[in-house]
Structure formats: structure tokens, C-alpha cells
């Protein structure tokens, strides 16, 4: 209530917008009910499969941060071209740097204990298929208004067009999964899979990757400077 008044007096010209503003109901009861439901669901799932609770919690935390921060992988790749702003791009690079350290720490932890390194199935061959796929994905995500996480987040937010994106995102994923074997056999497996620690050692791999991210960060900053002076 106090907020409304403040905005009106400060700006003066916003009166038109503010007059259309509906009185806001507190959403707190919904939030409490939702949290209770999620709690019950996670308890129920955890009974059947141990650890599901933590997966759900991580997912929720990720979604919450994604929504509140307006973090958007699509924007990070699109806005430099569209607006010349690389703030989101740099935020993604910072996230990459942090995950580089985190993932390496987890993998190294398993490695020195002589355990199989987790997540090695994601070390997949790189080839021209990677580039072709990246371009297709890039075109698709700009048209759909979000990548995978962005689409899910905005669907949760209640943006109706993204509902359509979600349906076709599911259809596309299923179709992709259906034909993946063929693509893998004919194209993807022709490439070479590279796990950086095998080539540069664990420390070398982290330093190299962080250095590349750092260079990209500098490049992004310079790009914005050039664009805004233009």
C-alpha cells in the first residue's frame, strides 16, 4: 500500500499505470500451502527412493534462484548481439568458473580415493555434430524464448506462450531420444572424447579452463565497452 503512494508521488507521470493497479492480496497463504505440499511430496518420494528429497530440494533452489535473478542462458548468448550488453554473459561465465572448481573437486575426491569418477558418461565425443547441434539449439531457444531451464522456469511463472514451448520441448526431446542411437552410431561416435585432466593433469585442467573463462570474461567486457561507445 505504502509502495503505491510512494511511486505516484515520486514519478508523477506514473499515475495512469498506478490507477489500474489492483489491490494486491497477500500470497503468503498460497506459499505456505505450496511448501507443505512440496514437503509432503518429497517425504512420500523419499520413502520410495532414498535421496529424492535432496534432488527435489536442489531443483527447487535452482528454480528459485533462476527466477529471482532473471538468470537466462538464452539472454547470455543473445543480448550481446541484440543490445550490446554482456552482463548476463559474464554472469554465466562466473557460474561456469564456480562449477569448474566444484565439479573438479568432486571428481578429484572420487579419483584420489580410487573410486570410479562420477559423471564420466557426460564426457562425450566432440565433433562437427557438436557445432551443428549448438547452432540448431541456439536458433530454437531464441525463437522459443528460453532454453530448457528457462522454459521450465517461465512455465512455472505462468507465462502462457512458454506452455507451448514446453509441449514441443517434450516432443522434441522424445523424438531426439528415439533417434539418438542412430545419430550416435553414425556421427557422434566418430569424434574423440576429451577429458581435460587426462591431458593436463587435474591442476592443469582447472587452471587452463579458468584461464579460458577469464579470457572470455575480458572479451565480453571489452565487447560491451566497444558496443556502448558506438
Amino acid at each position, binding site marked *: 500500500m505504502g509502495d503505491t503512494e510512494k*511511486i505516484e508521488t515520486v*514519478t508523477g507521470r506514473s499515475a495512469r499505470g498506478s490507477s489500474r493497479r489492483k489491490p494486491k492480496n497477500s500470497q503468503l497463504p498460497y506459499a505456505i500451502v505450496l511448501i507443505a505440499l512440496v514437503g509432503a511430496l518429497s517425504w512420500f518420494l523419499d520413502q520410495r527412493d532414498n535421496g529424492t528429497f535432496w534432488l527435489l530440494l536442489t531443483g527447487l533452489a535452482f528454480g528459485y534462484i533462476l527466477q529471482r535473478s*532473471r538468470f537466462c542462458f*538464452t539472454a547470455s548468448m543473445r*543480448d550481446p548481439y541484440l543490445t550490446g550488453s554482456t552482463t548476463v554473459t559474464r554472469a554465466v561465465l562466473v557460474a561456469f568458473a564456480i562449477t569448474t572448481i566444484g565439479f573438479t573437486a568432486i571428481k578429484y575426491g572420487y579419483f584420489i580415493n580410487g573410486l570410479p569418477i562420477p559423471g564420466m558418461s557426460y564426457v562425450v565425443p566432440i565433433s562437427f555434430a557438436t557445432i551443428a547441434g549448438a547452432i540448431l539449439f541456439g536458433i530454437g531457444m531464441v525463437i522459443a524464448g528460453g532454453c530448457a531451464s528457462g522454459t521450465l522456469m517461465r512455465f512455472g*511463472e*505462468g507465462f502462457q*506462450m512458454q506452455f507451448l514451448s514446453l509441449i514441443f520441448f517434450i516432443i522434441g526431446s522424445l523424438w531426439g531420444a528415439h533417434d539418438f542411437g542412430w545419430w550416435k552410431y553414425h556421427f557422434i561416435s566418430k569424434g574423440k572424447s576429451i577429458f581435460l585432466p587426462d591431458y593436463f593433469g587435474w591442476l592443469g585442467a582447472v587452471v587452463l579452463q579458468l584461464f579460458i573463462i577469464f579470457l572470455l570474461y575480458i572479451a565480453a567486457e571489452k565487447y560491451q565497452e566497444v558496443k*556502448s561507445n558506438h
Partner: protein
Amino acid sequence: MKEVILDCFGEACPIPLVKAQNKIKELEIGDILIVQIDHSCAMKNVPDWAREDGHNVEVEEIDDGEWEVIIEKVK
């Protein structure tokens, strides 16, 4: 000095941004462009672009998940 309203409700990012960029070119200095959006992503990149471009910008939440970005063209 005129006030132009750009209705971008239901349009996903980056459409509101591109529309706003095109519209502001048609306006004179001192005119006000009001971009109505309900896509949270556009709530970030429209004001960012306008500020970067040197205009006066204000964002107002007119309803839950609906915003008006008020841009005063200054150059």
C-alpha cells in the same frame, strides 16, 4: 510531447525489446514510450538496453507478473 503505449503482453523475450528498439527510433526527444510486458526476462533486458542507450527509465509492476517500462527519450 506524446506518450506511446506499446502492448507486448504475451510476447516472449526478445520480441518486446526489438519492438521497443524500433519504436523509440520513431519518437522525438522528450516523448515517452511505455512498454507493457509480462515476460520476466524482458523486464530485465528492456530497461537494461534503455539505460545503456542513455534514456530515463522506470519500471513499475502494475499487477502480479505484469510490468510497465516507462522510457523517456532523451537523445
